[in-house]
């Protein structure tokens, strides 16, 4: 598949190119080609051959599309970001020590390889390959998190590597259990044959497999209580990387869970998987809500908001029915919004040189354009209409009530409100508030247009999604929903 090979090869090439300008153009070009190919795949809808290891069904295509769009935005942002970082490399924002950055070729190379791995995740039709690709995303993104070479980012990288690797090892065990479930009927791990023969799988082994896979990919996805790596990694990595981790990588891990849920649904275990998904979804919402309330660091706050949204996705898929559509819509909108917010947070960090919420005041006066985007992002992420997130959240609520999951619905509403209140306080304080007087010597940071536009575009898309759902997107999301619920091939 061309989609994977291009970023793979160019990623390898990026390690070797020593000229900055060349490498940045390469990054942009690959992102553009990847997006174009993805759109082509959307239009043509390539045939899937049974037994093939790679192929794009609606579900894969949906997540591939999101990844590709995000990567495009991220690379536009990254080019400018890298140029800025090159000019004045780092004084630490919170403790004020000097550190070096990672060599730029390594960063760009890993970024492109990371894209290749995520593409492989979305396109894989074999659970073994899916596993290998998810693990590859972990390993390739570790150097990205460690872009700023200092103690805290190192700690974050170590936690990320270890927790995710062990989590993913659990998923491997789950894969083997799934193999054991199909051993009697001689099934391998490719999705097509698993789905069409799901009824002949051994139920006890299948349940064990789902648990292990859920824990494994759930760790990667950031579901509580396996989320502990996530706030650290998101807060310490550069804004571009946080945006990709949160917007694209978490979705990829979620896709892993969805694939297994598909198999379980086909085997008639939808009730079993649904309960687990609902339970951990609510748990994640709860964790995120509490930690957002007491948050002191705005990037960590965004990270917890990601955990909240992963909880919502899990809840939505667990509830089934109309909620699945809502969850998928929410996944798309959350990715775009959160990526945009992380981009903006990078600009705030550049302007104020601190991640402490208490020290960022008066954004609206100091960096008005950034402030407007920051507040827009807040309204979108908390699900204020009109936005795709609002629609998604509302559909999930509706399905919860009509499916008589009253307790889940009540908890869901309560925690959403808590999150809204907690984030509202933080965002308002940061935007309004009394700005500290600028030091005379300090040159005020001015956000370049190139770094604002990706976020603005993403936000505009999410608002549009709330107002108007294009027919082709509706087709894909409905197709993906049918895959999850029906467990058909």
């Amino acid at each position, binding site marked *: 598949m061309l989609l994977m090979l291009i970023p793979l090869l160019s990623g390898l090439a990026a390690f070797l190119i020593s000229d900055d300008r060349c490498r940045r153009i390469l990054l942009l070009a690959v992102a553009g080609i990847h997006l174009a190919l993805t759109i082509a795949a959307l239009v043509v809808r390539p045939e899937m051959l049974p037994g093939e290891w790679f192929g794009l069904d609606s579900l894969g295509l949906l997540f591939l599309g999101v990844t590709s769009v995000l990567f495009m935005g991220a690379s536009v942002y990254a080019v400018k970001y890298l140029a800025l970082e090159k000019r004045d490399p780092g004084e630490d924002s919170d403790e004020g020590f000097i550190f070096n950055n990672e060599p730029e070729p390594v960063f760009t190379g890993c970024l492109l390889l990371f894209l290749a791995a995520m593409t492989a995740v979305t396109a894989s039709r*074999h659970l*073994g*390959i899916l*596993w*290998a690709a998810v*693990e*590859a995303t*972990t*390993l390739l993104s*570790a*150097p990205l998190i*460690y872009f700023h*070479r*200092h*103690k*805290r980012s*190192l*700690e*974050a*990288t*170590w*936690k990320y*590597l*270890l927790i995710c*690797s*062990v989590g993913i*090892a659990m998923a*491997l*065990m789950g894969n*083997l259990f799934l*193999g*054991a479930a199909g*051993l*009697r009927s001689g099934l*391998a*791990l490719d999705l097509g044959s698993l789905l069409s023969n799901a009824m002949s799988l*051994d139920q*006890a*082994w299948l349940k*064990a497999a789902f648990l292990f896979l859920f824990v494994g990919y759930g760790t990667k996805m950031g579901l509580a209580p396996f989320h502990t790596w996530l*706030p*650290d990694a998101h*807060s*310490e990595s550069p804004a571009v990387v946080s945006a990709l981790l949160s917007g694209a990588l978490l979705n990829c891990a979620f896709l892993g869970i969805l694939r297994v849920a598909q198999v379980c649904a086909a085997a008639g275990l939808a009730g079993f998987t649904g309960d687990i998904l609902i339970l951990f979804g609510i748990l994640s919402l709860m964790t995120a809500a509490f*930690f957002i309330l*007491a*948050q002191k660091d705005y990037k*960590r706050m965004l990270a917890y908001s990601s955990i909240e949204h992963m909880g919502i996705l899990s809840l939505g898929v667990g509830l089934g029915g109309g909620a699945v559509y809502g969850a998928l819509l929410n996944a798309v909108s959350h990715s775009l919004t959160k990526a945009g917010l992380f981009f903006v947070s990078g600009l705030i960090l550049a302007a104020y040189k601190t991640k402490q919420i208490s020290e960022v005041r008066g954004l609206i006066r100091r960096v008005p354009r950034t402030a407007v985007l920051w507040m827009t992002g807040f309204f979108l992420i908390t699900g204020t209409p009109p936005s795709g997130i609002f629609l998604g959240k509302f559909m999930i609520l509706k399905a919860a009530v009509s499916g008589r999951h009253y307790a889940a619905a009540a908890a869901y509403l309560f925690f959403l409100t808590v999150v809204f209140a907690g984030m509202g306080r933080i965002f308002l304080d940061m935007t309004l508030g009394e700005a500290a007087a600028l030091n005379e010597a300090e040159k005020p940071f001015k956000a370049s247009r190139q770094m604002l536009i990706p976020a603005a575009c993403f936000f505009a898309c999410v608002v549009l999604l709330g107002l108007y759902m294009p027919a082709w997107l509706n087709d894909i999301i409905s197709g993906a929903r049918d895959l999850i619920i029906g467990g058909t091939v």
Partner: protein
Amino acid sequence: MTTLAELIIVAVILLNLSLAASGSLATCIRLAAAQGVIAALLPLLAGHGVPSGTIVFCCAVILLKGAIFPWLLTRARVKANVSRDAEPVIGYPASIILCLGAFAASSWLGTRLPLPETARVAWIVPASLSTIFTGFLLLTTRGKAITQVLGYLVIENGIYIFGLALFVEQPLMVEMAILLDVFVAVFVMGITIFHISREFDHIDTAELSQLGDWYPKQSGGEK
């Protein structure tokens, strides 16, 4: 040949116990490597008529786990200049007892999750589960970054025992992809350990505790 395979299973379990009991990093690296190599022999003995692809694969595993991983880890250990593990959270005798308990529990679980008749070797499931548990024990109770990587490797050994004894007929490509990932994982972790030791002058992960929401951030005081 199954008796030989069962002998291997016994050896794996004994190695688990000695891993739990040992505090010297060099010994731990060697023990984990030995476990990996012994486990890699398993698919060669368990089946009849081993396909040539499997032989190649097993050789690759033996090379990786018996030579490359120990070499990488030893290099990291020498660079970081540590020979003994920090005092574990749970003492060594307690670790051994925990390991034995885990073995008993896994044996019980093994009877609850019966394998289809095609499985050839008895005690596969208990051995693999107890190995995974030992890995977790190393991962959570030991203080040095290297022991944590070892824990990860031991977990991987456990999974491998389960996997290869069952699925000799899995497509080779998938196995290779998995193996490649594990290799890169250890490689990246090795590099990270190197960075940790340079940045902090030690590799005690217990002191990697600046990030988090439970504790207020300590200002100053650390190196």
